[in-house]
């Protein structure tokens, strides 16, 4: 008796096990017992979905990384805004500054804005290399017209340095170069409201500044104004010294 029951039990168990591995089956228990059909879903991994989702993510990531790398490469070393130039100083002179014939006591040295000589007395900035300290009130008017003005301390730079700076300026409309007595660094480059002082004429930021700011209409008051002043090339006005 007991033996029968046991074999019945084990058979039931075996049947149960095989049933779970083999999908739904109707109750086929011996003895006419029917069991309600049970849907047993096999919890296999949905491989197709897994592969598809990995593929989509990988493709999206690849496209994004490629695009970012392209942008990164294109922008390497590019100056897109003033802040990209290390050490740049920014000021806030408004447009419409006064035109005055008298000397101006500028806050910055070299000046970057403020009242200045009336038209047409801007310093010629058609790529002009001056060998005198040109009058600052005339230079500021050139800045108002979009010029980038490079200045150097004549006591602190060599002739080779001056030649290097001249290469950046010579014949390039919108630029000028002049010595500046008492300049507190070897080289200083300025445009309207922006200035960068550096220790070496070879500093690559000089060119970055010049390339970015020359005639850059976002940053100076009079887009379209001229840099021409042939009279000033012929007779440049020197900065007044305190000695009469």
């Amino acid at each position, binding site marked *: 008796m007991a033996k029968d029951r046991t074999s019945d039990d084990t058979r039931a168990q075996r049947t149960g096990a095989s049933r779970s591995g083999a999908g739904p089956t109707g109750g086929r228990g011996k003895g006419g017992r029917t069991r309600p059909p049970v849907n047993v879903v096999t*919890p296999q991994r949905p491989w197709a979905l897994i592969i598809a989702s990995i593929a989509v993510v990988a493709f999206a990531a690849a496209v994004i990384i490629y695009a970012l790398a392209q942008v990164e490469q294109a922008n390497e070393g590019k100056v897109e805004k003033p802040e990209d130039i290390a050490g740049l100083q920014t000021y806030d002179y408004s447009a419409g500054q006064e035109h005055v014939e008298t000397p101006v006591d500028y806050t910055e040295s070299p000046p970057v804005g403020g009242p200045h000589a009336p038209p047409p007395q801007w310093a010629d900035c058609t790529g002009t290399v001056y060998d005198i300290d040109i009058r600052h009130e005339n230079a500021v008017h050139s800045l108002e017209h979009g010029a980038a003005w490079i200045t150097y301390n004549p006591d602190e730079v060599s002739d080779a340095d001056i030649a290097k700076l001249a290469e950046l300026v010579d014949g390039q409309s919108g630029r000028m170069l002049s010595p500046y007595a008492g300049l507190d660094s070897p080289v200083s480059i300025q445009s309207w409201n922006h200035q960068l002082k550096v220790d070496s004429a070879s500093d690559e930021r000089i060119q970055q500044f010049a390339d970015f700011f020359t005639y850059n209409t976002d940053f100076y008051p009079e887009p*379209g*104004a001229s840099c021409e002043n042939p009279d000033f090339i012929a007779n440049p006005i020197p900065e007044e010294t305190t000695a009469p």
Partner: protein
Amino acid sequence: MTGPSSTTRSPLRTALLAVIAIGLVLLGGGLAVALGIGRTESPTADSVDAGFSRDMALHHLQAVEMANLALDRSEDEAVRGLAFDIAETQKDQVGRMQGWLALWGLPPTGGDAMAWMGAGTGGHAGHTMSEGAVMPGMATEEELAVLRGLTGQPFDVEFLRLMMRHHQGGRQMAEYAVEHAEVSAIRTLARSIVESQAAETGLMAGMLAERGGTPLPAP
């Protein structure tokens, strides 16, 4: 070996389907950006941006014309210097504005003059323009004919009077554009016109007084 029996999708399937859906949305968005879908449209012919570009360019061209006249016949160094500055600057700015119109696919002329300005604001009810003047501050043909007939200091005085009034009219146009133009390059140019021409107007007032002249009524 008997796993959970369930009649619904497993959480893993749901998660994977969600990942795929999100990934496709992102790719679709990227494609749209690459194709330029959704980028801002360029200004239409009757926009403030286009109207200002057309009308201010024409307005500038008259200033250039008067300045070139001064360069041709004035003997006064300060007047010639000012005229050179005005001619160069405004001619360049005309190029800028006509360039924008070309990029927007719009012609440089046409449209109702000044229609873009003050539409519905009633801000110009009290403003008078010289009869025959197309835009604020512009000289009429008669006034230009008078200018062309003058020489010496009378020419200089008349030139300064006409140019001052011209600047004052242009300023009104530019101020409107600063407030109402949508393209930022237009607002920037308009702002620089307002500010630099204000300074020039001050300069001209001084020069006029020095030469014994008085300004024309403001436009």
